[in-house]
């Protein structure tokens, strides 16, 4: 199906209220996967966030923010990233947080929870043998907790609902 037909079938339905959505992930493959979900958000007010300013022109419709990049080994960077994401979530007050991965998504879902946002975690398709570290840890905080691998699904989550590929 062409993207525009999908947007009609999947985006906001007529008469439904527009939601504020925070779509957030680290850059690279995670953000590529996140953008492949964009058609499900069409018609809503989406803010795209990743760790590299260079994605501004590639990001789907909506507003765009870049936050500090940091891995688990870079504690100082993580603190800066958490502060930026906290500020963003408190300002934006999203209805829904959607993430495909890693530290930025984990932080946004945790802070989002505190202000009443509902959350979706779609674990990266790269994690075929076990959930990512952040994916495992975010499980109890995500309202919809998904893996892209059927054999990793469990009755209490993560659940399997197809993949980005």
């Amino acid at each position: 199906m062409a993207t525009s037909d999908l947007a009609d079938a999947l985006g906001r339905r007529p008469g439904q209220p527009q939601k504020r959505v925070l779509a957030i992930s680290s850059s690279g493959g995670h953000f590529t996967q996140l953008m492949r979900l964009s058609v499900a958000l069409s018609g809503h007010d989406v803010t795209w966030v990743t760790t590299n300013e260079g994605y501004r022109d590639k990001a789907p419709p909506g507003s765009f923010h870049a936050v500090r990049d940091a891995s688990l080994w870079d504690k100082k960077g993580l603190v800066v990233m958490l502060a930026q994401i906290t500020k963003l979530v408190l300002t934006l007050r999203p209805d829904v947080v959607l993430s495909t991965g890693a530290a930025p998504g984990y932080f946004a879902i945790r802070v989002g929870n505190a202000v009443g946002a509902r959350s979706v975690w779609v674990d990266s398709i790269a994690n075929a043998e076990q959930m990512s570290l952040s994916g495992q840890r975010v499980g109890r905080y995500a309202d919809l907790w998904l893996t892209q691998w059927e054999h990793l699904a469990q009755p209490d989550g993560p659940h399997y609902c197809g993949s980005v590929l």
Partner: protein
Amino acid sequence: MKLFVTVGTQLPFDRMVEAVDRWAADREVEVFAQTGPAQYQPRNIRHQDFVDPATFDREYASADLVVAHAGMGSIFTALELHKPLIIMPRLARFKEHRNDHQRATADRFRQTPGIHIADDEAGLLGLLSNLQALTGPQGEFSPDAQPRLLQAISEFVEDQQRPRRRTRLWRTLRGVR
């Protein structure tokens, strides 16, 4: 012949970069490598530790062949652009990643035409020795996820019934006892 080599956005992958650099020494090829924070200094190829997404796209599109770590970003781009791609998985035993998930990714794409798997340096050199024969992925590649996944997310976003988690902090912020 123009090659683009990429190791992704975070970690170095010297084993792959060094193999390509040595291979390129006595050959008529133009190679540009994005190497990450590498220890190994390539001698025979143009290289840079990181590139911005626009440069990545430009180098990827203008290359005849891409050699990449087995990361999803590189794979999606190859499928989109129908670009011949060699992927080599990072291995935990060489401290190239936390675990061996890239080996699983490589296995996942072993049957995909146009994605060529190099399990190690020898496999990489084997593929490079016959690079004229490496084809790219064929057919239409959708820019969207599977409809089933999109549907689940779309419904979740619109769901009026599903209660938000209301935490103590939220109630405090709103002044509710």
